[in-house]
């Protein structure tokens, strides 16, 4: 069985989501499978409609506008496109957090089709316990 990496995407800021997608790429490059649990503000970014406008973490401060502009100019792919591309190379599974989805009345159908399933924390922790590495972003 392939080694696994478990990621918890919590923050919905673009920089942290990108960090997650880049780490997932590194894992896939190393022949590892990736299970991603998406919750809270990150889950909002997976809604089909009414997605909050992506921003950078508050620590970007005054640089925020400039960095966003540079990323646009240099055509940096979105975190979600990076994940989509990974599916051609390896195994990446995205799971929506049932707790936060329930709180907002979101169903699997309300989320991007890349979401494999909406699952509870216990099921995810069960996946994570067999992983070589678990990160919370």
């Amino acid at each position, binding site marked *: 069985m392939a080694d696994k990496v478990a990621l918890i995407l919590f923050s919905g800021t673009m920089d942290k989501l990108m960090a997650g997608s*880049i780490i997932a790429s590194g894992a*896939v*490059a190393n022949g590892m499978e990736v299970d991603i649990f998406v919750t809270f503000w990150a889950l909002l970014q997976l809604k089909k409609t009414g997605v909050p406008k992506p921003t950078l973490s508050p620590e970007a401060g005054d640089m925020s506008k400039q960095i966003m502009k540079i990323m646009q100019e240099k055509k*940096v*792919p979105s975190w979600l496109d990076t994940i989509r*591309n990974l599916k051609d*190379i390896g195994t990446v599974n995205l799971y929506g957090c049932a707790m936060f989805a329930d709180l907002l009345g979101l169903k699997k159908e309300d989320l991007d089709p890349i979401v494999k399933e909406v699952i509870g924390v216990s099921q995810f922790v069960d996946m994570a316990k067999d992983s070589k590495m678990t990160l919370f972003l």
Partner: protein
Amino acid sequence: MEEIKPTRVIDARGSFCPGPLMEMIKAYKQGKVGDVISIYSTDTGTKKDAPEWIKKSGNELIGVYDRKGYFEIVMRKTK
């Protein structure tokens, strides 16, 4: 030495880490044993990551070449 002609050339110039590496791996997965894959990149992370990946995955690193304003990494799929 006779120059080795690549089976496939990937121009990933302007793409950032880990983009070029992932493009290379994709081409590797789609290719067949014996294929020579060449990748152009301007990303410094790739210059280190890609040769490392080629060696670790048990394939052949033919070379890393400095070109004008970019570099080229050439590998042969051996497995």
